[in-house]
């Protein structure tokens, strides 16, 4: 079920991406998206460490130790790719040149606040490019399971985990449905995986309206 939910979410998220867009994909569920885009999708993947034009994973003989993505996994580069340095990579991100950032999260609030980098009470030791991406990208899509393994909702009225950014998420895709953040309110726009509205209500810690 865990793996299935993640695959379902990734497949649905892939549908949000249109040819020509420049997209940054976070670790976890977003990393499953490329297989649903396929070759020739026309989607340009940027990785912040710093490459525009990420291609599919390398076959064993293609692995190049100087060619990794932000998850430190080996990747390939497509024709027309460009390498740059980290300062330029984040200039591109902050400057609004990433059309869509897709990332995982620990919590998202009804007004689009995102918490995805730290758990309270633990040492906070890694933020990476998350803050830059959720503020800089033109559209932010959060992909995550609806609830924690302990059954707590991840969509909440207000985040209790340390924030990554305020009012940043535009769309939240879980295995149960698609929630859009519109003017600081959540709207359920689509049901997924056979879920009913009441299933979404049960798994969601914040009010939302329904516009299916």
């Amino acid at each position: 079920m865990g793996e299935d939910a993640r695959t379902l979410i990734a497949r649905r998220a892939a549908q949000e991406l249109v040819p020509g867009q420049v997209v940054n994909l976070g670790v976890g569920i977003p990393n499953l998206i490329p297989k649903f885009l396929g070759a020739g999708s026309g989607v340009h993947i940027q990785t912040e460490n710093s490459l525009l034009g990420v291609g599919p994973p390398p076959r064993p003989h293609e692995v190049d130790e100087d060619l990794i993505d932000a998850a430190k996994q080996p990747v390939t580069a497509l024709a027309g790719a460009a390498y740059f340095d980290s300062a330029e990579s984040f200039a591109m991100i902050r400057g609004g040149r990433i059309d869509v950032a897709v990332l995982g999260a620990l919590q998202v609030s009804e007004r689009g606040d995102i918490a995805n980098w730290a758990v309270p009470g633990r040492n906070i030791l890694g933020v990476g490019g998350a803050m830059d991406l959720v503020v800089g990208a033109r559209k932010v899509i959060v992909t995550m399971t609806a609830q924690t393994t302990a059954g707590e909702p991840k969509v909440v009225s207000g985040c209790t985990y340390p924030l990554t950014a305020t009012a940043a998420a535009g769309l939240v895709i879980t295995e149960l449905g698609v929630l859009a953040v519109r003017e600081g309110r959540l709207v359920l726009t689509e049901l997924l995986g056979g879920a009913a509205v009441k299933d979404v209500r049960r798994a969601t810690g914040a009010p939302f309206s329904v516009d299916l």
Partner: protein
Amino acid sequence: MPARLASPEEAVSSIRTGDTVLAGGFGLVGAPLALIDALVEASKARELTVVSNNLGEPGKGLGKLLRQGRVRRAVGSFFTSNPEVAAAAQAGELEVVLLPQGTLAEALRAAGAGIGGFFTPIGVGTELARGKEERRIDGVANVLEAPLHGDAALVYAARGDELGNLWYRKTARNFNPAMAAAARLTVAEVGELVALDEIEPESVHTPHVYVDLMTRAR
């Protein structure tokens, strides 16, 4: 989005009266002359703010636009090479905003890089710092400079590939990369349109995310 090919006339057609236009080049080297000609001949946009190191030469490059009386404000670092700029400023027809050349370049870069403003030690204690916020940082006086955004950027590159990745030749690079990143609409005039990977991926100077339209130099 990858860049789309367009004629110079089409490429400048969305520039409107009152817009801020960034134009690359140091003098005429690296200046997008076909695009400037199209702006001069095919566009009716007036009251333009033009950001460029120079404002062309008398009757050349951006100097043509000035002669047409369509430049309301010029932002740059060295207008002395075109005496008609001084005449227009004297006559009250043109507002001139002068910046140190490095501050001009950095303000353009800041706009492209999503930076809200930056402190620089350049210009402190001079007329060009007048009215600017001053702050001492680590014992050095700095002034606060604002990013310089454009509605449109017109740049020139020796080579552009099918996606819009750009490569600049020798000193024709100058302000072009910073301007390409600093505008809502960026048009690149390219000397040569090349296939993907004819520009080595490590040598792309302006990645295609910054380029909306490409046109061929004439």
